[in-house]
């Protein structure tokens, strides 16, 4: 076989360009999704959207607030992130006599329209399915699994998929994924912790962009949540939706409150599904965001990652303790030979 002409710089760049173009054609769906996101980010920067916040009064914010998303805190020195300076306090969580056990809130939301069957006695869980995004892949998920693994009769399947939620359905459809996991594992308890990636606009392939928090966005997002929870209600499996905790950025916090209120609303519609409010589980003694807390021995424990969103191992442990204490009213994890509550 004869050797073709050697590459010149021009031909080499042409080779690279054509190869890249071909890959982009083959991966058109991903490329178009990426391009749409990139474009929407650019346009979003030009005109920040106005949206209405309808936050539940139980979450500590003023109901029915309408306004612009507050700008993120300014960063004075580019190499240091002073958010912790603004929001940190030191000391223990809200429950002063028990730093690792902040006061557990009521599981059922106050204005619930949940059927009476939801308030039935505790169930015994043998197969627990934990699903969520990076918070389940790291931090909270592993800590919870480690605790549940201590019960010999409990089998745990944990599925934490990075960068997922209910916005980019084309990448991962959680409703479909949950159905598949239920059919594969047959759990008797499902724990969901999702949503941290979702405070963004929905950009449909055709039609107008839906700004985060507006009525149209809520309608679409709510229908996706309903579809997800339908997988649970179809099989009548007890489900805990672990709400998102406080975040470092005030602007992000406001968005998370919107999401939490939607999770609560949708959970209330499904029998056997409980929304767990964890907002204050990781706050400091002043009820503010904290990157660090002090442990029972007085040691300084980092509870949040440097992005002020994700939990560290220490943070995961606190949220796990909070979860197990709260959930123990409704679920029992049985050990071999004896019955004990989860905590």
């Amino acid at each position, binding site marked *: 076989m004869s050797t*073709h002409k050697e590459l010149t*710089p021009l031909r*080499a760049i042409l080779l690279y360009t054509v*190869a890249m173009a071909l890959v982009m054609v083959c991966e058109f769906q991903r490329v178009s999704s*990426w391009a749409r996101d990139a474009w929407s980010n650019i346009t979003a920067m030009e005109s920040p959207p106005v949206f209405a916040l309808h936050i539940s009064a139980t979450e500590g914010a003023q109901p029915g607030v309408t306004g612009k998303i507050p700008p993120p805190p300014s960063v004075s020195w580019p190499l240091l992130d002073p958010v912790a300076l603004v929001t940190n306090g030191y000391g223990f969580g809200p429950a002063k006599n028990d730093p690792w056990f902040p006061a557990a809130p009521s599981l059922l939301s106050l204005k619930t329209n949940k059927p009476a069957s939801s308030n039935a006695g505790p169930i015994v869980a043998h197969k627990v399915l934990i699903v969520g995004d990076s918070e389940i892949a790291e931090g909270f998920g592993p800590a919870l699994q480690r605790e549940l693994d201590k019960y010999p009769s409990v089998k745990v399947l944990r599925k934490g998929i990075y960068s997922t939620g209910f916005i980019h359905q084309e990448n991962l459809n959680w409703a479909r994924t949950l159905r598949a996991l239920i059919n594969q594992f047959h759990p008797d308890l499902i724990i969901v912790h999702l949503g941290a990636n979702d405070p963004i606009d929905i950009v449909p392939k055709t039609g107008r962009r839906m700004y985060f928090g507006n009525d149209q966005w809520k309608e679409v997002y709510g229908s996706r949540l309903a579809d997800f929870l339908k997988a649970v209600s179809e099989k009548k499996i007890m489900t805990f939706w672990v709400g998102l905790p406080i975040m470092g950025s005030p602007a992000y916090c406001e968005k998370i409150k919107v999401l939490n209120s939607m999770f609560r609303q949708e959970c209330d519609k499904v029998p056997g599904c409980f929304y767990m409010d964890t907002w204050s589980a990781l706050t400091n003694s002043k009820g503010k965001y904290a990157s660090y807390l002090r442990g029972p021995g007085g040691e300084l424990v980092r509870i949040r990652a*440097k992005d002020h969103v994700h939990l560290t191992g220490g943070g995961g442990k606190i949220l796990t303790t909070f979860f197990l204490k709260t959930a123990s009213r409704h679920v029992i994890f049985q050990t071999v030979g004896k019955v004990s509550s989860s905590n």
Partner: protein
Amino acid sequence: MFLISFEFSLFLLVVLWLNWTLRGKGVYYRFFLLAANFFFYATQKTGLILLPLGVGISNYVFALLISRSTRQGTRKALLWIDMVLNLGLLAFYKYFDFLYHCLDSVLVPLHIQLPPPFFDIFFPIGISFFTFQGISYCIDVYRDRDQVIKNPVDILLFVSFFPTILAGPIMRARTFIPQIDHPEFDSRSFQEGFALILSGLFKKLVISSYLSEHIVRDVFQAPAGYSSPTVLLAVFAYSIQIYCDFSGYSDIAIGIAQLMGYRLPPNFGMPYAVSNVQEFWRHWHISLSTWLRDYLYIPLGGSKKGKVRKYLNLLITMGLGGLWHGPDSRFLLWGLLHGAFLALKHMWRDLRQSLSADKTVKKAPWRLSTPGLARFCNFGQCLLVFTLVSFLWVFFRAENSARAFEIFRAIFACKFGGAGFEFPVLPAMAAGLAIQFAGPKLSQFYTRLQERLPLHLQAAAAALICTVIIRLGPSGIPPFIYFQF
């Protein structure tokens, strides 16, 4: 900007075009490359470009002063100041939290509670790599003043070269800087660069991501729920994952550099096909292990100050090499254990040498004369070293030392109940192991094939392989493991 992303592929297209248009045009080329480097690094966080800029300028100034100074004492003092500056910067960004916790834990028994740190330090990816490059340049000038570079832009280019700034390979100024002025285009090198990028993509997207997602992460996070064979398999799987992840990154970095006409030193050989720990370090993260050898082990005295001192130097070098990865007891333990095994290897060699020097002792009985048996024993040794290295990786991967011991307990508990693993993990592991042997041959084959094809078929072949790799990979790609160091 993530190295494996559509935006990076577009960025690289622009860079390649300008690179080959401006190459050889002195000042213009240098400023273009500098701008590309800083633009790339600034996509992490704009202000971070101050770091490579500062490291480059300070090392340039100190190296110049060292080269001009005639008094040995002054030269030494200047070198020390430079090293304190570089290592101080590294310590601030990498070890501040750890040091703060240490101080707090000392004060807690005295009933003094420090407030939590007032700020969170954003970890700049790659700082460990470019500070080490800066230090190596100054030490080289200290050792040989002729190696000084007069043009500060060259030093900035060396420190901030975008293919390597995030995770190496750690370059040396004397091999990189002379290439800036070489305008020749090498067709073969370009094709090899392409092959390396594809190889790196396959290792990262297909093997590393799959193993991470389907066995390693879950088992290492909560080993108690898994059967002992699964935990053991996860330990071996992590060995393969970290090899594919880091060597995959190195392949991509070296490949991109080759597309731009730069030859970088290799960072990996065949680390899991070696018969002792010393050989392993000749094949693993070569640029770091040679850096540690040249700038730490040898200045400590190397093997020139007696046997005991040699073993101690190995322990110190590997211990500090472990701590370079992070301020955690598990990294220190990992490094010290590697140091101990290296020291044992040297002890064994010293013993054999002294025995063979002693004429009264007959030929060692363990020396095998049959080639087949020797090959079998060599295979056994390789397996042993792979197992040993894999077990040591447990300290590297586990969340903390306690979790590492939990993993060992889970292995040796011989528990057969508990969660198992998915079958495709096994072929993925086999492919990860095989690629260290087959990788270079496949790359050669690809290069030769491409040279025989017309341009449009070359592009089609490259695109086809790339698309298959992307399709085999997951939808979300976890970051490279070495970005955290």
